[in-house]
């Protein structure tokens, strides 16, 4: 059976088409404002690339903060469950998953079977999310990728005061005025976000192996700051931003169904209540 896993996040969409053991296609794009339309469009594109039609897809599982926008989904699973499943497939030794996306930072304690044991989340505040990095990269006038690179070239450690992204922007501007080298500012920003993410992770407790996923896992500067902040090694799988979609696809293959609404007589999985 061919299945689709669709992850609709705060800013981006990720879709994976999977057939039993093998991934057929992957696609990602911006979620935009009209998320439902963006999903339809990207889904049609990926089907075309794979040379199949909607009828060939046996089951569609959605996840992400806007999972409900996938009108054609057969069901949805919570983000934490998708992360846990996806990571379990890629790194079976993972016990802690840290997922930092555009608008959320999340830490999940997972069982050897890929079940969610506990999780904590920050979705209230942009500090500690990818949006914070975007805002700071605008203030620094470098791209996010560039910022990730230059952060690794920093030679001195600065600490910033602002916790809020709005105030952080003014602080970065005044650091630029003081002629602080951009790599040091970039590093300070990464350290600040890493500190916030680490405190979310400490709520669930950090246990080896620690795996990081989500868009921010592609930011080497940030991953380095986070490693230092938690003082543990962090494994980043290939295509870390697709892990949510992969988890949804795995759930579709396994016939798991959590959403009550559209139950098609599939097995129900319980997820522990989150903290935070």
């Amino acid at each position, binding site marked *: 059976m061919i299945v689709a896993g669709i992850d609709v996040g705060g800013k981006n969409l990720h879709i994976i088409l999977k057939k039993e053991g093998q991934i057929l296609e992957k696609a990602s794009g911006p979620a935009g404002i009209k998320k439902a339309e963006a999903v339809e469009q990207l889904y049609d594109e990926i089907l075309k690339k794979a040379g199949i039609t909607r009828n060939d897809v046996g089951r569609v599982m959605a996840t992400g903060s806007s999972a409900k926008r996938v009108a054609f989904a057969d069901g949805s699973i919570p983000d934490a469950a998708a992360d846990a499943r996806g990571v379990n497939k890629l790194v079976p030794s993972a016990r802690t998953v840290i997922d930092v996306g555009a608008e959320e930072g999340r830490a999940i304690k997972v069982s050897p079977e890929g079940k969610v044991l506990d999780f904590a989340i920050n979705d209230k*505040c942009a500090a500690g999310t990818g*949006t914070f990095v975007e805002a700071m990269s605008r203030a620094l006038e470098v791209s996010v990728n560039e910022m990730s690179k230059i952060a690794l070239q920093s030679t001195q450690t600065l600490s910033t005061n602002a*916790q*809020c*992204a*709005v105030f952080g922007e003014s602080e970065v501007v005044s650091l630029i*005025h003081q002629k602080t080298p951009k790599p040091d500012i970039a590093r300070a920003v990464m350290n600040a976000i890493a500190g916030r993410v680490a405190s979310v992770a400490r709520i669930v407790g950090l246990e080896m192996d620690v795996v990081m996923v989500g868009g921010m896992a592609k930011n080497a500067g940030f991953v380095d700051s986070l490693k230092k902040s938690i003082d543990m090694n962090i494994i980043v799988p290939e295509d870390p931003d697709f892990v949510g979609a992969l988890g949804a696809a795995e759930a579709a293959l396994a016939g798991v169904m959590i959403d009550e609404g559209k139950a098609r007589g599939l097995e129900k999985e319980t997820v522990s209540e989150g903290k935070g």
Partner: protein
Amino acid sequence: MAEEVKTQEFWRWPETHWVNPDIDWEKGELITAGVDVGSVSTQAVIMVDGEFFAYGNTRTGSDSPNSARKGMGFALEKTDMKIEHMDYCIGTGYGRVNVPMAQQSITEISCHARGANFMYGPEVRTVMDMGGQDCKAIQVDDRGKVLNFMMNDKCAAGTGRGMEVFADLIRVPVWEIGTRSFKIQKEPPMISSTCVVFAKSEVVGLLESGMPENDIMAAYCSAMAHRIMELLNRLGVKEKFVITGGIAKNEGVVKRLEKELGIKTGERVWNKKEYMDRGYPFDTQLAGAMGAALFGNALLKMGKAKSARKA
């Protein structure tokens, strides 16, 4: 040929200044000044024998000393008074230690409490100061002394800066938001995101969905009112309750906060009818600088400070 794009800065509120026409400062004994260098705005207030003589309200620039000079210069612009004529100057606000003309600095919490006592009367018990980058709930006694306070300076939600960001996003001048937020059919549910950054995405989504601008302003004002109420409830609100700072001028927030609290904000004492008839202004942003100038007067009178007058 490229077309020049004129961008209006909707957050840019107008700067003001004023001189009291009924005071001849040269006849005064004690001339004191307060300079409140905030993160967003800077005010200078000059008092002659404890009477309000002049003020300047300007935007804070990139460094505190120049912002203080600019504010003071703006206050003195229409007078022949010079800084050398002043007996004592106190710096307050976030940049208080960087006020070049000041002999001393006092925290803005003390100054706002003292200023609110002067502007709203000794019955004031709770002052909510809503500044550019922080907000503070302050409990005061009948002499304007701080008994207890609680503040948020970590997060832009519920601050003036948050409102400025919103004004820029929705492209409506910041001082019109309050009034326009009442031109609605029905009170909409408040913006659900706490974080200003996330609220921005939420507002973009609402605009996209076709929600009228005024309704979105109402939704943002109620979210801000709710946020302030949470802080106030932690401290406890006692009447007379007053709001100082820039957001006090936004009736969209103030009236919704009054409704949520079930408490009306107190009447002003300074600038009552007779002053208003003479055209005296009343600016809630001045409370900090006003308090600082009053502290200067009191310190000189008590002999706890020495006049620095050079001319």
